[in-house]
């Protein structure tokens, strides 16, 4: 069977298993367990088949993203094989254990699904042959560990622990990513084999140190090294199988694995020595010290895990090949004894209902098998001879002694190592003694008993491994270890021996000292330790990880909120200020950096009337600005003044089309704003509060406004007086008549040269009209504006007070003359609109202008006769007009496709009609018709939709004083004033 197939099977089996498990019914416990067991056993089988070949290293390449150097490379050598064995082997045992551990009510398939997915990710990490791929799997392990820790997410502890774990490890993962990126850049490839062979170059590279630090952060967070260790104890909120699997054998070993993997590349420098060594040492001591004080079984195991991880880290940091061997060896050993201890703790928890050592006692009577297995495992943890823990710890002590020759640590190193070993003896002893010995427990929730046989079986297997390795290492672990070591160290593999007995040497002495002092310490301090109220070590209890983490997160959020408050806003005014200031400042920077604007004196003489006109325009504009707050109506009139000046300017400066358009738009806009004004309650000047702050702000605003005005004026002047550019416009002037059949070049531009713009523009108009219509359907007026306007109430009450008059007579009288005139004007304006439309191509006019004129004809009828009357007599279907207009315009454009020309190609011809003469016919006219139709529809829809609000009846009952008699009085009392609608002055 090809090895690449096996490699891929190894990784894809658990993935497939995870997917399958996620689709199992909620309570299909046995099916899920069977599935998971099958998968893991199959993996083990694959692994077994790969054992021989992995020694020389096998790989399978799947190209994925070659351009950025990410390919899927699965690769197995001695080291990764060993890790894969741990992952699948312990995985299989955990699967079995979990089947009995998890309750029947749990949705177990989800658990197994996550577990298998995690296993796949872990296998991915150790099998990655590409740095980035490794990071990918790395982050996936974080993710699934998060999901597994939070498996019981109804518990706040689980959620919190999971969050903390993911936050820390994912952050580390991000650092690792950058580190790997740098590593890859230094090596020239992300391929692991390339990187591994580029050690020399990398260590000499400028980027080595940043890369090292980033990679170490990744490894330290994952392997819970000081100062990133805090998440691990909180991850104990996970179900025990998860702890046994993730927090002893796999997840936390990922960091170790990574550093072992990259040991040949990264180690050997002082930076490595200092960083890795000190982190390892600190973790070793802190973990061991804290473990002593834990009352929670899993807490003790968690801190002891920290300590052992620190030990391995320290070994790796020593820059010695022999230490590296010890590190690898201890990794395996720790996985076996710690997993079994976790499982044992789980059994105790499961059977007694508690993990609190203060409540546990004398369990050996109830569960002798579990107790004896746990004792062996604990002894391995303590480093008792004939167990695997002893062998690797011995190597560790020997290495610390060997390193003491170097000046940095001198004798401190072996001393501290021994101290830590003594601590480990102490907490192991406490674990066993406190739990299994002594009187029977008093306040256990359940009466303890031996668990099901198959639940003990995994522990037994692991303990057996501890024993076998401890007693006959040469026959068991040696070949596997050797393969791993060679894979890492290659030619640098040192001589080492796994014999139990190396004779009397300093390491043995230290071992003995540690053992003895550990026991002594326990004997002396056990009462004080057991009485410790917090279950936390002295000195360190202040640094409650969770509280620190929470406060850090809270501070982060506070900082973020502060930044948001300070550097962002939700109000409109500051945003509009920025909108003006940013272009202003950037414009000024540009002008300033390039030596300023050169102002030309190439100007035409000032026409005095023009200046007079703009005197009026300017005054109107400033007046409108001044009045807009308290006298909206006045502001509107003033704006009308400015508008007419604009219109005259267009007349003056050769733009008749613009003048007409401006005028018509002006008229329609005025009516529109007046329609809106009815719904804006009056704003009272006498209520105005003037503070110093508001004065200052207004002053600032005013100066910004003036500066903006000046800047735009300068820009205008500069652009106007520049030497004329060689514009594309001459083309239009030359071809408008000959090639587009129109004399009014502006109109030809609109309907032919740039008809596409016009198509978009009318679409805008249509969309806006539809939107306005939609908004107004749900319109709710301001409370104060809901009542009938004051004028109408006054006039209506006058009408009803006089016997001879009927309500509404004042209005009828008022409109009698205008109505006659406006009705007679209706056909005339329509004809005028038609005229404007027809002449557009040659003379000022066109579809847009005509459409506006036409819509004014309708609006006048609405004003003169009221909405109801007008709609009873004229059927206006503005929405249909809009749709139709769009269709006509588009149809006119698309029609050219039939003749094989691009969209909106127009065709024109001068047609001779008998008797009448030559008539220009252009298809652009059809397009213009669409414009016309749409403009009529859209304008009418906008205005009429707004006008309709007046005749709607509020659904909410008007509870105000609208209908009382005093309202009939015209007296404008200040109280009533606030209820009035817009008052013109």
């Amino acid at each position: 069977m090809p090895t690449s197939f096996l490699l891929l099977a190894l990784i894809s089996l658990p993935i497939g298993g995870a997917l399958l498990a996620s689709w199992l019914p909620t309570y299909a416990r046995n099916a899920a367990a069977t599935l998971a067991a099958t998968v893991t056993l199959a993996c083990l089988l694959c692994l077994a088949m790969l054992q021989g070949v992995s020694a020389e290293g096998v790989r399978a390449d799947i190209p994925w993203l070659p351009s950025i150097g990410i390919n899927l490379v699965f690769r197995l050598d001695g080291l990764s094989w060993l890790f894969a064995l741990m992952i699948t082997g312990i995985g299989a045992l955990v699967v079995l254990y979990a089947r009995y551990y998890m309750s029947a009510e749990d949705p177990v398939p989800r658990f197994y699904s996550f577990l298998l997915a995690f296993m796949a990710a872990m296998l991915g990490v150790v099998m990655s042959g590409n740095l980035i791929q490794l990071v990918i799997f790395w982050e996936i392990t974080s993710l699934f560990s998060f999901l597994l820790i939070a498996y019981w997410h109804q518990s706040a502890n689980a959620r919190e622990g999971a969050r903390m774990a993911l936050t820390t490890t994912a952050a580390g993962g991000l650092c690792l990513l950058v580190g790997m990126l740098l590593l890859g850049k230094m090596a020239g490839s992300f391929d692991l084999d390339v990187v591994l062979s580029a050690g020399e170059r990398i260590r000499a590279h400028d980027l080595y140190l940043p890369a090292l630090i980033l990679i170490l952060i990744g490894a330290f967070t994952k392997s819970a090294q000081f100062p990133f260790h805090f998440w691990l104890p909180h991850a104990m909120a996970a179900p025990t199988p998860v702890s046994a699997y993730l927090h002893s054998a796999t997840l936390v070993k990922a960091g170790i694995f990574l550093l072992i993997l990259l040991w040949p590349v990264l180690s050997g420098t002082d930076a490595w020595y200092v960083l890795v060594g000190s982190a390892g040492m600190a973790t070793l001591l802190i973990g061991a010290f804290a473990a002593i004080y834990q009352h929670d079984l899993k807490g003790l195991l968690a801190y002891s895990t920290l300590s052992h991880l620190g030990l391995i880290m320290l070994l790796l940091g020593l820059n010695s090949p022999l230490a590296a061997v010890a590190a690898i060896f201890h990794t395996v050993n720790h996985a076996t004894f710690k997993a079994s201890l976790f499982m044992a703790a789980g059994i105790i928890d499961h059977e007694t209902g508690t993990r609190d050592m203060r409540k546990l006692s004398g369990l050996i009577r109830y569960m002798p098998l579990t107790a004896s297995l746990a004792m062996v495992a604990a002894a391995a943890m303590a480093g008792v001879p004939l167990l695997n823990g002893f062998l690797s710890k011995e190597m560790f002590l020997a290495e610390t002694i060997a390193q003491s020759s170097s000046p940095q640590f001198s004798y401190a190193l072996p001393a501290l190592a021994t101290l830590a070993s003594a601590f480990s003896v102490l907490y192991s002893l406490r674990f066993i003694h406190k739990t299994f010995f002594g009187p029977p427990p008093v306040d256990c929730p359940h009466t303890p008993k031996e668990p099901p046989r198959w639940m003990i079986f995994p522990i037994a297997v692991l303990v057996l491994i501890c024993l076998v390795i401890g007693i006959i290492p040469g026959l068991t672990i040696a070949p596997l270890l050797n393969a791993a070591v060679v894979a890492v160290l290659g030619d640098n593999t040192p001589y080492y021996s796994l014999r139990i007995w190396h004779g009397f040497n300093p390491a043995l002495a230290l071992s003995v000292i540690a053992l003895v002092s550990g026991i002594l310490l326990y004997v002396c301090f056990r009462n004080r330790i057991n009485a410790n109220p917090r279950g936390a070590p002295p000195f360190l209890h202040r640094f409650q990880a969770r509280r620190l983490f929470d406060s850090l997160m809270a501070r982060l959020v506070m900082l973020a909120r502060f930044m948001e408050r300070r550097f962002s806003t939700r109000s409109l005014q500051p945003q509009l200020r920025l909108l003006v200031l940013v272009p202003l400042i950037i414009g000024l920077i540009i002008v300033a950096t390039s030596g300023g604007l050169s102002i030309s004196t190439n100007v035409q003489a000032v026409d005095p009337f023009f200046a007079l006109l703009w005197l009026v325009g300017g005054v109107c504009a400033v007046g409108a600005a001044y009045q807009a707050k308290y006298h909206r109506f006045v502001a509107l009139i003033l704006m009308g003044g400015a508008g007419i000046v604009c219109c005259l300017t267009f007349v003056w400066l050769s733009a008749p089309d613009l003048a007409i358009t401006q005028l018509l738009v002006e008229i329609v806009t005025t009516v529109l704003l007046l329609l809106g004004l009815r719904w804006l309650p009056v704003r009272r000047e006498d209520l105005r509060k003037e503070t110093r702050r508001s004065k200052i702000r207004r002053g600032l605003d005013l100066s910004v406004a003036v500066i903006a005005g000046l800047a735009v004026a300068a820009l205008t002047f500069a652009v106007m007086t520049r030497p004329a550019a060689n514009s594309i416009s001459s083309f239009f002037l030359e071809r408008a008549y000959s090639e587009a059949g129109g004399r009014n070049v502006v109109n030809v531009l609109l309907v032919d040269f740039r008809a596409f713009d016009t198509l978009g523009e009318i679409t805008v108009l249509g969309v806006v009209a539809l939107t306005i219509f939609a908004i107004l359907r749900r319109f709710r007026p301001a409370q104060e504006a809901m009542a009938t306007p004051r004028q109408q109430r006054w006039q209506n009450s006058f009408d009803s007070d006089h016997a001879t008059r009927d309500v509404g007579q004042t209005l009828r009288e008022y409109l009698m003359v205008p109505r006659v005139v406006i009705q007679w004007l209706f056909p005339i304006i329509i004809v005028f609109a038609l005229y404007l439309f027809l002449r557009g191509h040659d003379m000022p006019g066109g579809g847009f202008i005509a459409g506006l004129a036409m819509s004014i004809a309708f609006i006048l009828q609405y004003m003169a006769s009221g909405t109801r009357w007008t709609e009873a007599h004229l059927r206006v279907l503005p929405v249909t007009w809009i749709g139709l207009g769009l269709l006509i315009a588009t149809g006119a454009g698309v029609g050219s496709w039939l003749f094989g020309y691009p969209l909106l190609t127009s065709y024109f011809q001068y047609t001779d009609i008998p008797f009448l003469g030559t008539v220009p016919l252009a298809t652009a006219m059809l397009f213009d018709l669409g414009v016309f139709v749409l403009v009529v529809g859209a304008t009418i829809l906008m205005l009429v939709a707004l006008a309709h609000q007046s005749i709607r009846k509020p659904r909410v009952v008007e509870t105000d004083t609208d209908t009382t008699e005093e309202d009939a009085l015209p007296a404008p009392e200040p109280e009533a004033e606030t209820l009035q609608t817009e008052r013109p002055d």
Partner: protein
Amino acid sequence: MSVLILGCALIAAQVMLSVAIVLAAWRVVHGPRAQDRVLGLDTLYVTALLLIVTFGIRTGSNFYFEAALVIALLGFTATVAMAKFLMRGEVIE
């Protein structure tokens, strides 16, 4: 000669009309009541129309006639709306 005469007359007329516009605008700005302002605006419209006519004469072209016609035929719409707003508080009932 005729150009000079007509030109001067046109300038004079336009100055007068421009002054008229300024005065009408003064009424718009000064008020005192809203009806005064509306009246001022209406006057402004009519005067602008006349100014456009003189401008047509000045340039000898008919291109501006429609602008004037729009004021004549449709310009009253805005002021009607304003007057009606003053009277009824609503433009379209």
